[in-house]
C-alpha cells in the first residue's frame, strides 16, 4: 500500500488548481493537471472507496432482504428510483433525508447523486458516444436554440485521448450522426440482435450496432478484460469498466502532485474581490462539520451540472450578487436531461435458446443511432432533433408465466426470447427549465439547497410517440410477436443525464462559460462537467463531458506555462 503522507498541513498551501468533484470529469482534470506538474487538490464530498466493498459477485440470497431493504426505502426513496441503487450498494448514494431539494408540485424531478470517491462513475451506464457537428451546429441547421462555440474538429483529438485511455469497446459504422472513435473490439450480438440488425438495414437503411461501452474486451493499461459477471454497478474487482478512482484519480495520486481531500462538502467559491479572482473554496467537513478553506490559483468545478451550479449560486458576493459568474443571468438556466419512456418490446418465438443464470452476462446492449432529421433523411413535420435507442434481444426467464405447479416451474426455465428498444431523446435547451437556490431549504451541512423546475415539452413528447411506433416497426421486421408499445414521457431526471445550467458560448451576455469552460466573469474559475452543454444531443453525454474537460485542461496548462493565470 502506498501512503501519501503530507509533511505540511494540506490546507496551509496554495494549490495551482482546486478540483471539486472526483467523478468522470474531476478525475480527468486532476490527472491532466497533476501530470503536467501543477499542484492539485482534489476535493470529494464523500469518503474513499475500496475494492473490498465491491459486491458484484455476491448472490442476492446473501442479502437479508434480497434487495427489498426497508433501510433503502426509508433513507433513499429518490435514489431508489434508479435501478443502480440497491441493497448491495446504497451507501454510495446520497441519503435523501440529508440531501434535500425542492421542486414545484407539478414538476417532479428525480436527482440521482453519489457522494463517494469516483461519484457516479462507479455506477454509470458506460455507454460512450461522440457527438457530431449535427449536434454542435444543430441550431444553424434547424433554427432552434444556439450553436456550441466549438465544432467537432475542436473536440475530436480529445475524444481520441479519452477513448484510448478509458477503453471503449465498439464497432465502427461510418454513421453520419455518430462519429467513429478509438475502439477496442466490439462485444458480440445475440442471434435476435443480428436478425434485427440485418432486417432493419435491408428494409429501412437504419444502423443497429452493438453498444459502444466503457467496458474492456481486452486487457488495457493494467486493467483486465470483462469477465461477464453482469452487474457493473456494484463495482468491478478487475476494473474492467471505467471508473475514476481506479484510473484517473489513481494516476493523479501517483504523480505526487495531487492531494485528495475526501469528506469535503464544498459550500462556495471564495473570491478576492480586489482582483476579481477566485481564491479558493470553503468546505464543511462531512463528519465533524468544521468549516475549512482551501486556497488555489484556479478553481475547477466538476461536481456535476446541478451541484456545480449550486456552488456558484451559493457564492454570491457584492460584485456578483445573483450568483458567481452570472452577469449573463444564464446560470441555472437551460437545464436538460434526455427524455426517455418511448420504445417497444416483444418476443421472438422462433428463437429456441433457453436462459441460464450460469452463462456470461453481457453488460451491454444494442444502440440505434439517430435516424430522424439527419442530413440524409427528410425533415420530420412533427418534431425537431431526434433520439437514439438502446435495447437488446435474448432469452429471459419467464417470471410472468401463467398458472402454478410443475408447469409453472418448467415454463419459467423454458423462458421467452425477448426483444426491445427504448429511446433516449434530445432534451431541448429552454430558459424556463432551471434551478435556483431554495431560500427555505438547507442540506444537513447547512448549505442552501436547490429548487429544480423542469418539464419535458411538446417536442420531447412527440419524440417519444415516434420512438414507440418506430421501435414497433423495427421489431416487427425482425419477426417479433406480442409487441407492446410504450410512449410515456418519463419524469425529468430519469435519464440521469443532467446537462446545461452553466452553458458555454462566445457571447458573455448569453452564456456563463467560454469555449474552454472558463467563466466569462472570473478568469480563473472553470466548470468542466456537464453544466457547459449548450444542447443535449441524444447521445449519452459522459464521453463528451470527459473530452471537454481534457480539452479545457490542455488550454489551462498552456496558460500556466505562459504565466497567464
Amino acid at each position, binding site marked *: 500500500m502506498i501512503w501519501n503522507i503530507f509533511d505540511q498541513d494540506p490546507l496551509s498551501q496554495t494549490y495551482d488548481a482546486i478540483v471539486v468533484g472526483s467523478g468522470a470529469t474531476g478525475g480527468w482534470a486532476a490527472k491532466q493537471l497533476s501530470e503536467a506538474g501543477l499542484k492539485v487538490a482534489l476535493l470529494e464530498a464523500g469518503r474513499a472507496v475500496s475494492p473490498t*466493498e465491491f459486491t458484484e459477485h455476491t448472490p442476492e440470497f*446473501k*442479502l437479508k432482504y434480497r*434487495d427489498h431493504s426497508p433501510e433503502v426505502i426509508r433513507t433513499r426513496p429518490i435514489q431508489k428510483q434508479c435501478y443502480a441503487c440497491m441493497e448491495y450498494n446504497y451507501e454510495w448514494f446520497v441519503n435523501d433525508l440529508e440531501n434535500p431539494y425542492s421542486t414545484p408540485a407539478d414538476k417532479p424531478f428525480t436527482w440521482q447523486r453519489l457522494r463517494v470517491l469516483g461519484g457516479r462513475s462507479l455506477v454509470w451506464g458506460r455507454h460512450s458516444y461522440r457527438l457530431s457537428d449535427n449536434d454542435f451546429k444543430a441550431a444553424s441547421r434547424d433554427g432552434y436554440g444556439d450553436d456550441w462555440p466549438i465544432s467537432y474538429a475542436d473536440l475530436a483529438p480529445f475524444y481520441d485521448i479519452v477513448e484510448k485511455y478509458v477503453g471503449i469497446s465498439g464497432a465502427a459504422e461510418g454513421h453520419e450522426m455518430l462519429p467513429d472513435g478509438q475502439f477496442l473490439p466490439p462485444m458480440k450480438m445475440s442471434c435476435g440482435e443480428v436478425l434485427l440488425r440485418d432486417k432493419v438495414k435491408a428494409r429501412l437503411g437504419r444502423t443497429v450496432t452493438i453498444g459502444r461501452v466503457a467496458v474492456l474486451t481486452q486487457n488495457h493499461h493494467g486493467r483486465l478484460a470483462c469477465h461477464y459477471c453482469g452487474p457493473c454497478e456494484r463495482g468491478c474487482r*478487475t476494473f474492467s469498466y471505467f471508473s475514476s478512482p481506479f484510473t484517473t484519480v489513481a494516476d493523479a495520486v501517483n504523480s505526487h502532485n495531487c492531494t485528495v481531500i*475526501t469528506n469535503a462538502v464544498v459550500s462556495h467559491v471564495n473570491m478576492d474581490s480586489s482582483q476579481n479572482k477566485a481564491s479558493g473554496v470553503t468546505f464543511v467537513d462531512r463528519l465533524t462539520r468544521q468549516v475549512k478553506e482551501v486556497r488555489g490559483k484556479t478553481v475547477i468545478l466538476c461536481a456535476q451540472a446541478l451541484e456545480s451550479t449550486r456552488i456558484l449560486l451559493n457564492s454570491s458576493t457584492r460584485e456578483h450578487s445573483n450568483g458567481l459568474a452570472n452577469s449573463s443571468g444564464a446560470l441555472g438556466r437551460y437545464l436538460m436531461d434526455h427524455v426517455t419512456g418511448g420504445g417497444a418490446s416483444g418476443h421472438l418465438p422462433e428463437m429456441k435458446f433457453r436462459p441460464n443464470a450460469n452463462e456470461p452476462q453481457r453488460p451491454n446492449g444494442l444502440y440505434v443511432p439517430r435516424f430522424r432529421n439527419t442530413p440524409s433523411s427528410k425533415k420530420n413535420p412533427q418534431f425537431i432533433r431526434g433520439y437514439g435507442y438502446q435495447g437488446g434481444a435474448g432469452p429471459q426467464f419467464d417470471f410472468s408465466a401463467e398458472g402454478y405447479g410443475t408447469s409453472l416451474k418448467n415454463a419459467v426455465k423454458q423462458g421467452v426470447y425477448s426483444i426491445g428498444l427504448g429511446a433516449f431523446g434530445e432534451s431541448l435547451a429552454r430558459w424556463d427549465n432551471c434551478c435556483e437556490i431554495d431560500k427555505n431549504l438547507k442540506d444537513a451541512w447547512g448549505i442552501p439547497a436547490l429548487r429544480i423546475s423542469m418539464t419535458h415539452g411538446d417536442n420531447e413528447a412527440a419524440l417519444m410517440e415516434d420512438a414507440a411506433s418506430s421501435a414497433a416497426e423495427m421489431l416487427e421486421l425482425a419477426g417479433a410477436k406480442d409487441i407492446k408499445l410504450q410512449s410515456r414521457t418519463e419524469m425529468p431526471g430519469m435519464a440521469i443525464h443532467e446537462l446545461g445550467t452553466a452553458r458555454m458560448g462566445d457571447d458573455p451576455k448569453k452564456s456563463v462559460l467560454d469555449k474552454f469552460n472558463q467563466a466569462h466573469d472570473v478568469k480563473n474559475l472553470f466548470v468542466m462537467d456537464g453544466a457547459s452543454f449548450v444542447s443535449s444531443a441524444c447521445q449519452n453525454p459522459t464521453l463528451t463531458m470527459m473530452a471537454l474537460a481534457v480539452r479545457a485542461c490542455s488550454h489551462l496548462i498552456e496558460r500556466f506555462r505562459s504565466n497567464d493565470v
Partner: protein
Amino acid sequence: MKRRELLRGAAVTGAAAALSVSVAAGQKSGQSAPPPDELTPAQRGVDASKDLASPNWKPLFLDEHQNETLVVLSDLIIPATETPGAKDALANRYIDLVLAAEASDRQRAFLNSLAYLDGESIHRYKNAFRYLAREDQDDLLHSLAYSKGASGWTGEAAGPDTGHGHFENLKQRIMFAYYSSEIGTRELGWDGNVMHGVYQGCDHEEGSHK
C-alpha cells in the same frame, strides 16, 4: 479467467494507490478503510442467507395460521420436482420478513389476498384452505389461476377477476421468494461460479438463427 490472473490484474493497476490515498483534512490521519457504518451489510461481507433457516425461527408478522397457509400454498405454487420447491426454500419465512418491514397498505393487500383464499375455500369446501384435501386445494387454485379475460394479468383488471388478482398477488410473492433464494437461484442454473467466460453471441449464417 483464473483467480491468479485476477489478482495479478489488481496488482498492476494503480488502483491500490488511489484507494489508500490518505486523505488530508476531512478524515483522520492514516485512515483509508471506510467507516463500517458507511458500508452496506453486503459491502461489509455480511451473509444473511442462513438467517431464515434458524431452528428458533418464528414469524415476525404473520400469525400461525397465516404462516401455515402460506407454507401449503407455496408448496402448491412451486412444488418440489426433481429440484426442491418453495417450501424447501422457506419462501414463507422470507415473505414474512419482508412483510414485517413493509408499509401498512402493502401488508393489508397481502392479508386480504390470503383471507380471500380462505374465504373462497370456506364458501366452496366448508373449511379453511390449509385443511382441504389436496385435490380440493388444486381445484380451487385452478379456478383462480387463469385470467378470465385476455391472457396475462396486467394488474389493472380488478372487478370480475378479483379472485385471479388475489391469486397473482400471492403467487408473485412466492415466486420472488423462491427464485431469489439459494435453492431458486440454483434452479435457474447458477452454480456459484462467477467466471462465465466471454459472451459468445451469434455466429450463425444468415437465415439459420435459432
